[in-house]
């Protein structure tokens, strides 16, 4: 039994405290005064030199937000957030002007290097076989650098921070901003509309297959700040784009707010693949600190035969409140949602998706794998809806939960609403623990309990991992092993 005890001890020291992206970057930053009022909204707008219509748009959202109430229906429990005790704008000094790598503070570059995010184009170009990924790096409230812009420009793809897009492509931003997630959508989306800082803007012109993966890397660094990024991706007729976002934050004892909005628009025959590896700081094993991740993500399959696919690997955040959705408006459009949500320590996850079938012959597929360990609570909440006119709507949903340890909870709350007789909806869900037989089998062949668990879990989530771009799948697999450390014993 000594060996078992040893494992248990090792595991105890690891626990969720092993978060490896918990360092802070010492860098001077410029912040707006603490608190939230009309002045702050105007300040953010002015810092970004936004046109009058956008300032007004923000102010309208702010006015609306003040009349709204924070939603409480999710199965998460957290103390009341003091919205006046936050900084709504924080930017590393010296980020203005032309953004080339040479202008970026070396301290920042080192940060991204530590995080394993390749910002230097040179390096990547040197490696001949390496797949290239264009990165937009967002640090607190602003985008610090976007790589491969020129090369993308040749293909006609616009990939830039949204604050830049407001200046350079106002007609596109004005046409699509808020068209998927309206200003009035929900409490956090409205707050975001008022104070959104930065995020990515992607436009892929008709018929273009984006030559490389696009990616955004979000980092919250400053204390007491909220991050409110806004991402807008438009895939014009017949185009294709694959986009990946990643996120981390330093370890801090207080909670930080992250309320993002992501809007996707797919026109006729277009396809958007959106992958997320979310690894915000989850708080320590006692539940101190961590990110509140309150995110509104929605894709609009506006055109016929368009397709939007969400893939998410959720391992971080103290609290996750996130439902990437698809509005299947176009005829024969398709929505997909693949999710792995892992919670450990005292994390709380309430996540899922919405598939709203409005058009004829629309189809959707939901594969969700929830894994809860430690003292965490993991909820899948999803809605599948077929409108009266959504003839031949098809949905298949599979959500499986795995429990590791007897202190955690796994919950499933699906909403299935069919208003069309030709719709075919199937839903299945299971909850179980890792089978002793499987563990025994692996250990018999010489694997440690931890390794065996990781192996079985990786098998459990394989369906979803397969959907990730290859290099991220490898990373995600490692991430899963790390987040489950300390869960066996």
């Amino acid at each position, binding site marked *: 039994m000594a060996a078992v005890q040893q494992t248990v001890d090792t595991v105890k020291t690891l626990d969720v405290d092993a978060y490896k992206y918990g360092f802070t970057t010492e860098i001077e930053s410029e912040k707006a005064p603490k608190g939230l009022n009309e002045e702050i909204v105007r300040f953010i707008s002015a810092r970004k030199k936004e046109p009058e219509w956008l300032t007004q748009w923000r102010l309208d959202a702010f006015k609306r937000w003040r009349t709204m109430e924070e939603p409480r*229906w999710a199965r998460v429990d957290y103390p009341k957030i003091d919205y006046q005790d936050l900084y709504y704008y924080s930017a590393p000094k010296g980020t203005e002007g032309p953004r080339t790598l040479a202008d970026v503070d070396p301290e920042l570059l080192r940060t991204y290097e530590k995080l394993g995010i390749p910002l230097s184009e040179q390096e990547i170009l040197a490696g001949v076989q390496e797949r290239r990924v264009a990165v937009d790096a967002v640090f607190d409230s602003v985008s610090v650098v976007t790589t491969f812009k020129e090369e993308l420009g040749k293909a006609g793809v616009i990939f830039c921070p949204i604050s830049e897009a407001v200046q350079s492509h106002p007609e596109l931003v004005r046409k699509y901003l808020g068209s998927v997630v309206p200003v009035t959508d929900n409490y956090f989306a409205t707050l975001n509309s008022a104070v959104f800082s930065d995020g990515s803007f992607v436009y892929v012109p008709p018929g273009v297959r984006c030559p490389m993966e696009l990616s955004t890397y979000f980092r919250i660094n400053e204390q007491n700040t909220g991050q409110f990024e806004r991402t807008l991706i438009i895939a014009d007729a017949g185009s294709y784009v694959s986009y990946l976002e990643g996120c981390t934050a330093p370890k801090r004892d207080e909670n930080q707010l992250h309320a993002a909005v992501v809007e996707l628009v797919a026109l006729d025959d277009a396809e958007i693949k959106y992958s997320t590896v979310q690894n915000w700081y989850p708080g320590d094993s006692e539940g101190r600190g961590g990110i509140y991740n309150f995110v509104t993500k929605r894709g609009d399959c506006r055109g016929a035969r368009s397709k939007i696919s969400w893939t998410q690997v959720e391992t971080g955040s103290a609290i996750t409140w996130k439902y990437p959705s698809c509005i299947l408006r176009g005829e024969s459009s398709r929505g997909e949602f693949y999710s792995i949500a892992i919670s450990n320590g005292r994390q709380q996850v309430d996540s899922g998706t919405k598939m709203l079938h409005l058009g004829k012959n629309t189809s959707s597929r939901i594969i969700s794998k929830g894994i809860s360990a430690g003292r965490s609570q993991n909820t899948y909440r999803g809605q599948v809806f077929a409108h*009266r006119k959504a003839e031949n709507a098809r949905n298949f949903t599979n959500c499986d*939960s795995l*429990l*590791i*340890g*007897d*202190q*955690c*909870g*796994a*919950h*499933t*709350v*699906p*909403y*299935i*609403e*069919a*208003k*069309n*007789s*030709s*719709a*075919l*909806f*199937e*839903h*299945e*869900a*299971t*909850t*179980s*623990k890792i089978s002793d037989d499987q563990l025994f089998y692996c250990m018999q062949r010489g694997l440690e309990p931890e390794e065996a668990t990781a192996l079985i879990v990786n098998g459990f989530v394989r369906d979803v991992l397969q959907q990730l771009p290859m290099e991220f799948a490898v990373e995600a697999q490692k991430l899963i092993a790390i987040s489950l450390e300390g869960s066996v014993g």
Partner: protein
Amino acid sequence: MTGLSSKAEEEFSGLLPADASASAKLFFEQFQRAGLPGRRVESWHYSDLRTRLRVVPPVAHAPDEAARGVARHKLGASERLRLVTIDGFFAPELSDDFSGVAGIEISSVGEAEFFGGAADPMLDLNAAFSRGGFLLEIGVGARVEPVIEIVALAGAETDRSRFGRNLIRLGAGARAAILETRDEGFAGFGDSALFIELGEDSQLDYACRCRETAGVEVQTLNVMLAARAKLRAVSLLAQTPFLRRQFFVSLGGEGAELQLSGAAILGRNDHADLTMVVHHNAPACVSRETFKYVLGDHANGVFQGKIIVPPHAQKTDGKMLCRGLLLSDDAAMSAKPELEIFADDVACGHGAAVTKLDAQQLFYLETRGVPHIEAEKILIDAFAADVFDTLASEGLRDVLRQDLSDLLGEKEPAS
């Protein structure tokens, strides 16, 4: 917590008699605090009582001779042992004499007899208004062979508010089969509650058919199972203008077993909501929930199921299944099968499927010379009838099968 009080809530307040007991007033205050549930309340989202119940009909009085006359006329003859209620009041004059059957005790029930039910505003409202219910007791170790039938009828006036509140109690090791027939007419408002308490090792087969429920009706079942007790319950709903039937089940002793099933055959503008919360409060309990909906015309079917497994309920085995068959373009089905699990050594699952009749199966039958309408009926019958198989009592199964085939016989062609 629903904000402004609705007109109906105020009317209830006016209807509560001044001489109501202290506990009735307490229950009513509880109801007032929560308010009449509507779509803003998560567990009532699909059945908006606030908009459906605008006017509250006067509260039904204890049955008089006229009411008994109407009921007697409706009853007719039967071979089964019957226990009759009129407008929710126990009517011993119309009920059979049970004194000759060993192991059965029937009496009036007092408020103190009921065990604590779920926290639900409509259950509180029922407790505030109810009077004159019955207590049906099956003694320890008694095995009652014949089917006992509970018949709920309306009195002379149909447009009334009814609040039946009854209790069935099985002693340790007892066995019985109970059929409930609800036939309170197409008008008024109903808010009834049935409590079922099963002692250790007891077994109950319970079937309920609601053919003509009141205009707006809520039926609450509170069930408590002791160790190794078994309940097999089936509900058959048809022609329900607005019905919510909710089950709150507590599997309170180790090894208890629940089979909860039902079929809803709906057409016209019918609305039927079957909601259940199954609480696995002890280790190694088994629960199976199986519900089928056949929806034609403008019918609206709602299924809400929730299995709760607290940390100490290890070795729980729970499976929930809900299937909807949409026969018309205007019919709608909403399903919300929930799992809430805090224990790790469990096997829980749920499935839900909504679709129309399978064209290939129809074609197969038609190629064998079965007319289209007949083929539809065969498939619908097969789809719905298998929920009755969970019953051990053959007597009950036969009643429900016959009911279903009668229902389908009346059916207009679906397409």
